[in-house]
């Protein structure tokens, strides 16, 4: 008997038992749907995170205090980066176009009877160009403001709305940690960055920040949380990295291990890729378990089916079916069940991916390799879990099989 005949026979048998066939497929359908959805969501998260970093621009470098190793070991990172480092980079590294040191903490804000905790960010005027922020109303603070420690503040759009509703906040006095600041501008809405709402923040000159708010100065000078740097262009990113690394080594008198870390956009993308890649893998692994369970379900039903159809098998053997004929017939039934379940599951999974894509910022996508893999794997599962019951069927003694009630 050839494959076409076997397939036709298998289809006939499966359609004669629609309910059982459907229930058997259910495990594979669910398994496949979850693989497709999970991988889709995982890759969506990956893409989302990547886009966030790409939105920074390809020229951005970050300098953060502490070496890779110390950041791994301790929570309290050393306060080795200073405002003076940032100034040195700005004035001495030729491949750098803008430098924005940033010093940030959560602080209580208040205006009249309204209070709220928000992120307070001390920085320099370069911040606007480095991070590509725009001013919606009023102005950003200037180099003069930084030099003079002026108590001026620029509001993120959410903070402006929270404290001043629809009225113009420019000229009002906002209290940060009970110190009065004059509002001089409001930034354009920028949205979230990696889940942090950048609009729920206020921006003040970094000198005012360290002198009046944090009071933190490290033994090396005015401490900063990190420094954002813009290279002149994309080609000079690695040159800039090399130069500012050497500069900081000299300034910090580094002998062995660097006490700071430089990350480029590429590094950041790589890290994000690793993390979300692991996440995707984990989701896929969980989903794969349900696919495996679905395969065991197929084996279960096939074993029951062999038991139930003993007489049919006996008859087929009596009229001339070889062991291989019976084996092939049952394996094909298992493969059809699992492959069809795979296709249906993939369709449902694709639907799930679209729903996730529509309902969340995750740009969940249906990936062709995931589909091919899921359908291929489920077909393989059918083969794998179908062989054992099929062998049981093929080895039945026709006399015993025909006699069974």
């Amino acid at each position, binding site marked *: *008997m*050839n494959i076409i*005949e076997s397939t036709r*026979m298998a289809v*006939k*048998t499966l359609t*004669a*038992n629609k309910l059982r066939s459907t229930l058997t497929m259910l495990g594979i359908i669910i398994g496949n749907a979850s693989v497709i959805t999970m991988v889709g969501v995982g890759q969506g998260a990956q893409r989302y995170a990547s886009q966030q970093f790409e939105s920074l621009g390809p020229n951005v470098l970050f300098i953060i205090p502490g070496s890779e190793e110390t950041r791994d070991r301790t929570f309290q990172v050393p306060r080795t980066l200073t405002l003076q480092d940032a100034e040195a980079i700005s004035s001495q590294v030729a491949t750098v176009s803008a430098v924005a040191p940033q010093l940030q903490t959560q602080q209580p804000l208040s205006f009249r009877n309204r209070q709220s905790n928000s992120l307070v960010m001390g920085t320099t005027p370069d911040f606007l160009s480095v991070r590509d922020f725009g001013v919606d109303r009023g102005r950003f603070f200037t180099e003069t403001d930084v030099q003079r420690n002026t108590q001026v503040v620029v509001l993120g759009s959410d903070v402006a709305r929270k404290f001043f509703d629809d009225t113009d906040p420019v000229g009002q006095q906002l209290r940060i940690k009970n110190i009065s600041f004059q509002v001089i501008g409001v930034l354009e809405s920028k949205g979230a960055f990696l889940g942090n709402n950048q609009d729920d923040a206020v921006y003040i000159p970094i000198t005012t920040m360290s002198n009046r708010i944090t009071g933190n100065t490290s033994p090396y000078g005015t401490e900063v949380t990190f420094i954002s740097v813009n290279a002149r262009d994309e080609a000079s990113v690695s040159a800039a990295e090399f130069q500012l690394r050497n500069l900081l080594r000299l300034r910090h008198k580094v002998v062995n291990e660097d006490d700071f870390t430089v990350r480029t956009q590429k590094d950041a993308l790589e890290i994000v890729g690793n993390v979300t890649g692991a996440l995707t893998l984990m989701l896929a692994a969980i989903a794969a378990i349900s696919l495996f369970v679905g395969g065991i379900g197929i084996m279960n039903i096939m074993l029951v089916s062999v038991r139930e159809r003993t*007489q*049919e098998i*006996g*008859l*087929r*053997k*009596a*009229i*001339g*079916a*070889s*062991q*291989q*004929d019976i084996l092939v017939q049952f394996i094909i039934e298992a493969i059809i069940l699992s492959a069809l379940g795979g296709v249906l599951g993939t369709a449902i999974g694709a639907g799930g991916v679209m729903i996730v894509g529509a309902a969340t910022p995750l740009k969940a996508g249906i990936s062709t390799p995931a589909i091919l893999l899921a359908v291929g794997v489920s077909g393989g599962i059918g083969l794998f879990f179908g062989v054992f019951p099929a062998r049981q069927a093929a080895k039945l003694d*026709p*006399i015993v099989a*025909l006699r069974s009630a």
Partner: protein
Amino acid sequence: MQPVIRLEDICKIYGMGDTEVRALSDVNLVVNTGEYCAIMGPSGSGKSTAMNVIGCLDRPTSGRYYLDGIDVAGLSDDELAHVRNRKLGFVFQQFHLLPQLSALENVMLPMVYAGVSSAERRERAAEALTRVGLANRLNNRPNQLSGGQQQRVAIARAIVNRPVMLLADEPTGALDSQTTQEVLNIFSELNASGITVVMVTHEPEVARQTHRIVWFRDGMVQHDNMRPADLAQMTLTV
């Protein structure tokens, strides 16, 4: 002319040592082409075992079995399956039709395993069903047919591959007396057209319509060629 069945010193022994059971001991039997023959005997006499050996469903422990001139005693399972497919047609007490297939498809089944082309299968199956009087029931499922009709479908399935012999195991055991007669008439007609028919039965009325009765007892052939007329006396002694 070559006999269809030639059994030479066939023994079938189940179990080993103390639990050994001799189901058949030194059975010799010849059935020629065109015979219509019933195998009878009390239960435990070995007639079912003999039927299994004749039907190539079971292998004898020792002895030689020539089916249509071929020594089949030493063949493998798959070779036996091939022999059953090409040389034998089976009719069972319980019909054994596949419920998910129509009458036509059930009859086509042996030809599927014989590798006959789809068009020819259809044609020959319809022909066989016409021969057993079911030309108007080709597309009915077994559960839409009466017991007698189902058994006739089974007979059509048995003859469709043009076997050298029809083997029937209690073919009327599940039928009432009227449909029993219908089925026996078909056997008679098929035999008249030249097909060798061997059936196992325990019903004297059925056996009486055959031409020869082989009587088994204690695993041996007690009477090789009883005339149906002698049957009344035989059944009394059982």
